[in-house]
């Protein structure tokens, strides 16, 4: 039971890292929607996008697939259809 609790805490922490990175990426994305020729924003976006791919790989290795429909590899056990779902964390 304690192990399950620790796992949840670790998952929430890793998610938090991803959420922080995604906040920057989303902000840059919306900014570039109205400023499509800002090269500095573009460089920052593409660089962070690369960082994100690494972080997603790390998250998925520990906690299972983050995406459906083939964007993530599935696995047994702890595959896509296994919880906890986002509203249960």
């Amino acid at each position, binding site marked *: 039971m304690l192990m399950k609790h620790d796992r949840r805490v670790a998952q*929430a922490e890793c*998610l*938090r890292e*991803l*959420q922080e990175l*995604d*906040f920057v990426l*989303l*902000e840059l*994305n*919306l*900014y570039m*929607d*109205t400023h499509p020729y800002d090269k500095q924003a573009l460089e920052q976006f593409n660089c962070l996008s690369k960082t994100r791919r690494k972080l997603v790989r790390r998250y998925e290795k520990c906690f*299972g*697939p*983050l*995406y*459906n*429909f083939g*964007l993530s590899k599935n696995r047994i056990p702890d595959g*896509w259809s296994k919880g906890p*779902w*986002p*509203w249960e*964390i």
Partner: protein
Amino acid sequence: MWIYEKKLQYPVRVSQCNPRLAKYLIEQYGGADGELAAALRYLNQRYTLPDKVKGLLTDIGTEELAHLEMIATMVYKLTKDATPQQLEEAGLGAHYANHDKALFYHNAAGVPWTATYIQAKGDPIADLYEDIAAEEKARATYQWLIDMSDDPDLNDSLKFLREREVVHSQRFREAVEILKDCQGKKKYF
């Protein structure tokens, strides 16, 4: 095409079971200025808007779906341990009679969501001004909800959502300026 990401946009924690707060939060789920209305409004308007703003409407509309999921998570967590008696005392008796603890797209007063809350005029300026107004109304709603809530964990998430409304409003205002500039360059339109 949309892909589901198995995570929330921002963490949602609640300090304790509080069905009364959930009843009010439903305003941002199925209310006139709520997240469902926002997502459906932008994702429907985008098809016929000028190329320069199609991306913005697509991206903000998609982000609204993530906000909808955050509100759903708040309501779920605030009500999951409540007894039918507690729900009744919180004013959710009519909701419980019809939906048990399932979520439903209605506002804080129980009025079901309707497409008449949103518009698509085919006129870019008319549509974008509606979008700016929608963001400001949603921001105000988040403020009233924060004013009523005494849950510090919940307020953290509500403040995040309030700030997103500000950012969206600013981006839509920029979109209006971009379109005005384009119109100024044309000989006729």
